[in-house]
């Protein structure tokens, strides 16, 4: 961004913020958002559709704001107090107010930006690790127990050699060993090694202690009884993070299940944070399915998926239901590279199942960085660790989850 041309102030404090404010409006607010923001802030509001789309013309001068009505967002260039007042409004149209950040043309070294070219895997790290700022993080999940509730793990996979792994099978008649691949993949994303036997690096919390609960059979199916038993086991073992890439579809209008919500609330109170995928039932742009069970519980974090350009993945479910049915955060979920059971060792896959372990791995890093933050406190930290995206909160929640540095 050319600061002279846009009239932006320098960034003497090095905050990374421009002094302008981004406002996310509720879906469907449309052009009415201009009047709402004008009344709320006193700024002169323009509509981006009234211009030809050039950067110069859509950049608001001091005292002005610009509504990008097709995006459901606005950029305000006014007194920060006005924006702060807006953030405290409780009307239904204003969903979120964020300080605008400076972005760079190449985000790879400095972290991702919302205007970069699509990210790609390099010999150093997968695109997902770049997007979530894993490689530059000083944290590795040291001393943190992370439970993976899934199809198990290839316990002899070379990338997990030497790791602390505690495992338990909750599927009758099956060992913990992963006969499907889903569990090994998800464990790889959340807790894979810093230096895998074959590059690139694909895992996040490489020093975390792994608690592997096989709650899904080798066809990747399971029941409440197995999953609740797995959660109970993880809580009993003081796992700070419980990642469960599983779900069951719900309909628009469905409420969350009370048993799971009680379990999740009790897990939080005991110091365990539950994370689940939003689900893969959407076929965008035509059909958006609601966040599935159990991610639709208010006490469980629901994670949607984005691609290498930070666009919402076409299959990623959205926050259509209230009271827990919202997407909380987004994470990489397209063309994700991770571990596979021997002899394959590695594979690339897409899904919100791949996105949820990103949030789980980052939660482990945050838990290491904040030793007293567990349960609800850790959940709050995770929810505060994001890069705002130009996508509806319905689909990506607060934004793209980011690692602590």
């Amino acid at each position, binding site marked *: 961004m050319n600061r002279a041309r846009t009239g932006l102030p320098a960034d003497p404090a090095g905050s990374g913020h421009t002094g302008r404010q981004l406002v996310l409006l509720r879906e469907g607010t449309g052009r009415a958002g201009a009047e709402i923001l004008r009344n709320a802030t006193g700024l002169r509001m323009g509509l981006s559709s009234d211009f030809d789309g050039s950067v110069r013309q859509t950049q608001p001068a001091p005292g002005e704001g610009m509504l990008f009505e097709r995006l459901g967002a606005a950029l305000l260039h006014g007194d920060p107090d006005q924006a702060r007042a807006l953030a405290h409004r409780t009307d239904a149209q204003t969903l979120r107010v964020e300080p605008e950040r400076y972005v760079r043309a190449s985000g790879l070294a400095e972290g991702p930006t919302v205007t970069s070219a699509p990210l790609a895997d390099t010999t150093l790290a997968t695109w997902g690790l770049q997007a979530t700022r894993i490689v530059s993080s000083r944290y590795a999940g040291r001393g943190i127990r992370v439970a993976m509730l*899934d*199809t198990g793990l290839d316990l002899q996979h070379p990338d997990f050699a030497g790791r602390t792994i505690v495992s338990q099978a909750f599927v009758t008649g099956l060992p913990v060993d992963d006969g*499907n*691949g*889903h569990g090994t*993949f998800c464990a790889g994303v959340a807790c894979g090694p810093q230096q895998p036997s074959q590059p690139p690096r694909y895992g996040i919390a490489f020093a975390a202690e792994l608690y592997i609960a096989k709650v*899904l059979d080798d*066809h*990747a*199916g*399971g*029941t*409440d*009884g197995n*999953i*609740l*038993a797995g*959660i*109970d086991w993880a*809580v*009993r073992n003081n796992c700070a993070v419980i990642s469960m*890439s*599983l*779900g*069951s579809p719900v309909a628009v209008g469905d409420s969350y*299940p*009370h*048993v799971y919500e*009680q*379990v999740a609330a*009790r*897990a939080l109170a*005991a110091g365990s944070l539950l994370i689940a*995928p939003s*689900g*893969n039932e959407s076929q965008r742009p035509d059909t958006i399915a609601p966040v599935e*069970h159990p991610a639709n519980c208010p006490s469980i974090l629901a994670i949607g998926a984005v691609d290498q350009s930070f666009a919402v993945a076409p*299959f990623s479910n959205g926050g259509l239901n209230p009271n827990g049915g919202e997407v909380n955060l987004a994470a990489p979920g397209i*063309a*994700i590279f991770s571990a596979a059971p021997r002899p394959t060792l590695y*594979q*690339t*896959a*897409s*899904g*919100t*199942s791949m996105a949820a372990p990103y949030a789980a791995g980052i939660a482990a890093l945050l838990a290491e960085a904040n030793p007293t933050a567990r349960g609800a406190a850790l959940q709050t930290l995770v929810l505060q660790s994001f890069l705002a995206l130009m996508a509806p909160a319905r689909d990506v929640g607060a934004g793209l989850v980011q690692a602590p540095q």
Partner: protein
Amino acid sequence: MSRVNIAVAVAEDARGRIYEVAAACRALGLEHTSTLADVGVLTGSVEFHDLPKLRAIPGILAVELEREFRSGEFRAGR
């Protein structure tokens, strides 16, 4: 009558006596599979027509039929 698998959430103020609650459920027909004391849940199976009786037991917060889950299937990688 059909037998159904269920999960039972024990109310917060009854978690300290979860084994008594489990015994009351068994007396009303619950074939008790497990007690998940750390999260306050009982699992098992019961005749469908006995569900209202279970829900009326003091100390029970919710009784729900068991769901089936699956992981998100792998999708084409790239």
